[in-house]
């Protein structure tokens, strides 16, 4: 689930602010930080889209080559807290390894363990710079399954 997710689904940010925010983008307003709302046919897909939205704030994902792979796994039965954990684990791995991530995959096995994978490369001068995402918060956090679609929302601290 979530495998092969296309990184360009969310709006890229090559020129940052010079692109107007538009309907259909995965962001919603928050006073100091930035809200992310994404959906998917599966929960895993919605989580992957949320990761793409978070990392799109930092660079244009289409410029990131998948030269390195980082695997991570965690157990979190609460789906809302799993979303926060997923994003925070990715941010931590990106920070520790000094990597820009451009593509993500996520699965959950029958035992409830989440297995994620991020693809990226070390930051290069040619990566367009957006803003640093520091962490996922519990603000406006929700995971909903309605009409066959999973919708997830959270606020990231920038």
């Amino acid at each position, binding site marked *: 689930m979530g495998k092969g997710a296309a990184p360009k689904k969310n709006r890229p*940010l090559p*020129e*940052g*602010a*010079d*692109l*107007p*925010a538009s309907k259909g983008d995965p*962001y*919603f*307003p*928050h*006073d*100091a*930080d*930035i*809200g992310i709302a994404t959906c998917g046919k599966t929960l895993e897909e919605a989580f992957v889209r949320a990761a793409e939205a978070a990392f799109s704030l*930092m*660079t244009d994902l289409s410029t990131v080559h998948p030269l390195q792979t980082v695997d991570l796994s965690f157990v979190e039965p609460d789906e809302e*807290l799993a979303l*926060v*954990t997923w994003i*925070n684990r990715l941010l*931590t791995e990106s*920070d*520790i390894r*000094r990597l*820009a991530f451009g593509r993500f995959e996520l699965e959950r096995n029958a035992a409830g363990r989440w297995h994620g994978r991020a693809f990226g490369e070390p*930051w290069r001068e040619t*990566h367009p*710079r*957006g*803003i*640093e995402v*520091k*962490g*996922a*918060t*519990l*603000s406006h*956090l929700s995971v909903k399954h309605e009409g066959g679609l999973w919708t997830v929302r959270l*606020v990231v*601290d*920038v």
Partner: protein
Amino acid sequence: MDISRLENLGPGRWGVIPGTEKKRPPVVLFGTEPLIREMDDKVLEQIVNTSRLPGLAGAAMTMPDAHWGYGFPIGGVAAFDPGQGGVISAGGVGFDISCGIRTLRTNLTIDRAAPSLEPLADELQRRVPAGVGQGSSFPFSLPELGRIMEGGAIWAVENGFGEKADLDRIEEGGCMPGARPESVSEKAKIRQQEEMGTLGSGNHYMEVQVVDKIQDPNAAKAFGLFEGQILVSLHCGSRGLGHQIGTDYMMDFVKAAPPWKIALPDRELACAPIRSEAGQRYIGAMNAAINVALANRQILSQTVRNVMEEIFPGIVLHTLYDVSHNTCKEETHRINGKSRRLWVHRKGATRALGPGHPSLPSAYRSPGQPVFIGGSMGSGSWILAGVSQSEELSFSSASHGAGRSMSRHEALRRFSGRTVKKELSSRGIHIRSNSLRGIAEEAPGAYKDIDLVAEATEISGLARRVAFLRPRVCLKG
């Protein structure tokens, strides 16, 4: 904010009209009517929720620059009594633990500096790592990082970053006691190894400013300020380490809340009893992060000194003051005439000690503590001085910045990074940033009027205005 829900308690002070509960929530909002009206209703909701946490002492408060945060509002102040089941909240400190402002004063005037401002901006951008993906010029081993977590700015000075005289002008003398590096996760430590001496992004900045107007000549003299003087201000915090600690403990507290039987009106207010083992572990980790932030600003200050000494031979840079605005500290305060030891959360709020306070360096005992209200790029900043009455009003707390007037999303819709940079350049303000998006999100128009915030801070009795600073160079992440 719907002001019909509030009643005026005095100059710049507002309380909540009791609703169906018929009991007034222990909440005070500071600010003039226009600023209160401009605040989101969410600010009121968040501070009322905060006031419901166990062991609150006095009232939960918002400063005039308050805006909607997560759990606590940004610009929120709340003190808790450990003897009455009081709590410590990771969200009440914020993710960027000990984010704060360091201001350096120089003997340089704008007349001498003006011709060299653009080269100065370029050199600062070259030497100061800022923004996404920018690692440190000073990577440290994990054992060294452990010493930084315990020593703060004192460690930095002992290792060649700055001068001993700086320490006297930093809160806690540059080192927060009670740090427990063993309470900090390995992930947090590894994250920080290559982030010492980096500025970060978002609302963090390094500014070269000129003293534009002196409002209180006596305090200005005590602070060593004069009109036309060049100052440098740094706004940043504990970088990745602080964020990882905030993340780690927030999740721990959320999961641990049921056994403590703490009813959380908002999960983001996740907290632990101060006297619990988890609460004490967080306090130890938070203190380690405070020291990392103090060391980080000390390292950055030395980078600024090195650059400016090269460009302006003979320049002298002294630390005016270094004060954090995302902390929780144990302090003594008087409530209803009784002295109590309290843990005071200041999230996006500056400690503002009044004249005579024993924690102040001797040079500032008479005017009170320097208080910084940082603006955004084009809008300027204010230096204020602590006043005695804020002890009773706000546990000696005041505003910390202009406060956003619109979301980043809305700022992106309204402003273009290129246009903002060009417009500021035409006003003699040189912006340097690798991110046009960052410039647009931080556009001066996205913030409240800094003058109104500083004025409201004075009207509310939280601090008094000393000097207005106009930016000339701004480095953003």
